[in-house]
């Protein structure tokens, strides 16, 4: 049997898959030995199959497996009262553990303050916008003179600042402190109380 170039191109895929009969296989091999063009087609196709068949080509986005597992566990968990109660028990246990940790740190109670010397606030409007410094420990009324790190300020709601453990500035937020700190006030304090 003799095959021409076109026949080789038509069968190259089947040939590489071992899907051609022995007679045709021999004829293709015979042709390719004497035809550089068909040899290039055959070798190139073999190389393509080899490369794409490599496991490394099966790339997935970072965290793909973790997200799939999480989604599956969320959706496959039986949505029963029992599981909800189980969740409640787990949440309560977590809260107890967290509380125990806080107690061992001798903190007065949640939220844990970034500064152990700070005073918790009372009655601060949760939506009031305050500024905090990333590395700081206190939150301030915008414009307070006692903000130390003015380069990395964030403006957030007071409730958020408290949740993150920031304590109120004993100067600009004096009126919200649980205990009176210091006996003297200066002009700056008075000025910010009206904000």
């Amino acid at each position, binding site marked *: 049997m003799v095959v021409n170039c*076109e026949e080789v*191109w*038509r069968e*190259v*895929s*089947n040939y*590489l*898959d071992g*899907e051609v009969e022995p007679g045709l296989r021999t004829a293709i091999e015979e042709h390719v030995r004497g035809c*550089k*063009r068909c*040899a*290039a*087609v055959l*070798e*190139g*196709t073999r*190389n*393509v*199959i*080899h*490369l*794409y*068949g*490599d496991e*490394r*080509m*099966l*790339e*997935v*986005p970072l965290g*793909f*497996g973790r*997200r*799939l*597992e999480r*989604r*599956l*566990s969320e*959706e*496959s*968990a*039986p949505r029963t009262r029992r599981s909800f109660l189980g969740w409640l028990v787990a949440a309560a246990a977590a809260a107890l553990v967290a509380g125990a940790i806080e107690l061992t740190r001798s903190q007065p109670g949640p939220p844990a303050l970034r500064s152990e010397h700070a005073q918790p606030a009372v009655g601060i409007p949760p939506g009031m916008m305050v500024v905090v410094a990333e590395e700081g420990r206190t939150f301030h009324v915008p414009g307070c003179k006692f903000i130390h790190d003015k380069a990395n300020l964030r403006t957030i709601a007071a409730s958020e600042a408290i949740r993150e453990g920031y304590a109120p500035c004993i100067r600009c937020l004096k009126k919200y402190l649980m205990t009176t700190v210091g006996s003297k006030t200066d002009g700056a304090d008075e000025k910010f109380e009206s904000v």
Partner: protein
Amino acid sequence: MPAELSPLENPAPQLQEQLLIQRIRDGEHELFYELIRPYERRLFAAAYAILRNDADAEDATQEAVLKAFKHIRQFRAEAKFSTWLTQITINEARMRKRKEHASLMEPIVKDEGEGGTYTPRDFADWREIPSEALERKEVREKLAEALASLGQIYREVFVLRDMQQLSIDETAKVLGISTASVKTRLLRARLMLRDLLAPGLGGGWSKQLFFEKGTKPW
């Protein structure tokens, strides 16, 4: 204990898989991820072949896996689990594709004489791209880019057959086409990719990459 199960490391993986499926059907739902984990990357590749977008392919894969979980009782033991799973993923991805009307964006090559003979465009001596080259992200990206430039009907067949190593019959079954169509599309996909990566055409990229590295693998 679920942690002790490693179905693909076992000498009889299919049997282990069947046992795992039975346990899931009996209520041990938490084992399902263990069951599909060996296939998750292949499922993503199948979805990606159709959607060509990481986020959509991931969504489709997640959805398909959830559907497989919900319908695990419908899986018939005589079928191959991976084929069943792939089929669900392909269907999910195709459905999304239809919904998005993304087929309007398909390359024109899609309908380019599927039944006719494909004539290779490049006949220069083939410079082999060694497997080690796949360590390089640029090489993998170049290959993925070439694949993404094919029409959907070629990508589907190529990914299932040459990347997921499904048989011709399995590929035909998953895609709902004849084995003759699989063979025709596969031939065309392989030859088109060869042309795209050939040294005389787009293949200049590989030469450049290897020279950058300071080696000449051919």
